[in-house]
């Protein structure tokens, strides 16, 4: 067999210079066709649907934190006009009832947040209210976790979290909206 000279073999090397171009092309393709999607949001568990009318439970008024949002995006909290800024603090005070007031929740496990809105309520307002209520519960759980276990709620073990969740359960009941302000 004819022996290829060293010089020949040297020139047979594949030119890798265009590799960068190919990679660039792919890179630009991915840059253009993809979007970094916002995959965050407020997680909600909807109540299951049932065709039977719900049992009417008579709840003590002191345990119910009712939040009404009308078609003008105004808030009515427990019969009094309120605004979004104070909602979180207000809800926290209601749930924990630190001063043992007679018109607030007996204990956190009995507290129920009842939300009702119109069909004309803006979605942004609805979500903001929901967010504040959820925020109030999250802050309370966090405070409780710090008191009991000396660390934030999210760093607690599964059992510890369950314990806190059982003591401060998140109960939001949403009523069927009234048909005001429908587009």
């Amino acid at each position, binding site marked *: 067999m004819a022996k290829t000279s060293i010089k020949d073999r040297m020139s047979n090397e594949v030119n890798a210079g265009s590799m960068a171009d190919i990679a660039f092309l792919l890179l630009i393709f991915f840059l253009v066709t993809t979007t970094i999607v916002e*995959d*965050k949001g407020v997680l909600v*568990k*909807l*109540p299951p*649907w049932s065709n039977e009318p719900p049992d009417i439970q008579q709840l003590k008024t002191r345990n119910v934190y009712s939040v009404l949002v009308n078609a003008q995006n105004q808030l009515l909290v427990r019969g009094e006009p309120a605004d979004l800024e104070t909602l979180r603090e207000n809800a926290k005070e209601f749930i924990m009832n630190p001063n043992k007031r007679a018109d607030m929740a007996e204990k956190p496990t009995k507290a129920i947040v009842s939300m009702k809105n119109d069909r004309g*309520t803006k*979605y942004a307002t609805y979500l903001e209210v929901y967010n504040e209520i959820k925020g109030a519960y999250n802050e309370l759980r966090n405070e409780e976790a710090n008191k009991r276990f000396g660390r934030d709620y999210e760093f607690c073990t599964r059992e510890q979290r369950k314990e806190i969740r059982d003591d401060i359960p998140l109960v939001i009941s949403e009523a069927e909206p009234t*048909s005001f302000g429908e587009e």
Partner: protein
Amino acid sequence: MASIRKKKGKSLPPVSTASLPDIIFMLLFFFMVVTVMRDSERKVDVTTPNATELSKLEKKSLVNYIYIGRPIEKLQKEAGTKPRIQLGDKFANLADIPLFLEKHRVKINESQRGAIKTSLRIDKDVTMGIVTDVKTALRKAGQLAVNYSAKPKV
């Protein structure tokens, strides 16, 4: 001339560009991993509201998306200006939701079906009427884990 002699004496070997492809590939892989294919053409305008209590949606394959918003300007002639629902890449009605969920469901491994979440991408200016209708449809279809898509508040 002095300058010529200097150049000849100190000529450096050219900078090797052999590692350039590697660098670019690294960037490429980064983008391939952090981004998700744009699944469908957007037919409605959606600007999600802001919120603070956000949780992340894990497993992308276990998530289906429902968009609610006003049709984009180009399509307003045919579709009107009222808020509409978009499933996949077309406009849909409330009655189409169960089938849409079922189509996504059958693609997923049976053991993971309980973890399916619905991401609701809803425009912040939409009124609650249509949102409630969609929520009711989801409840009737047994899809209870829902995520209201939102941007972090700054």
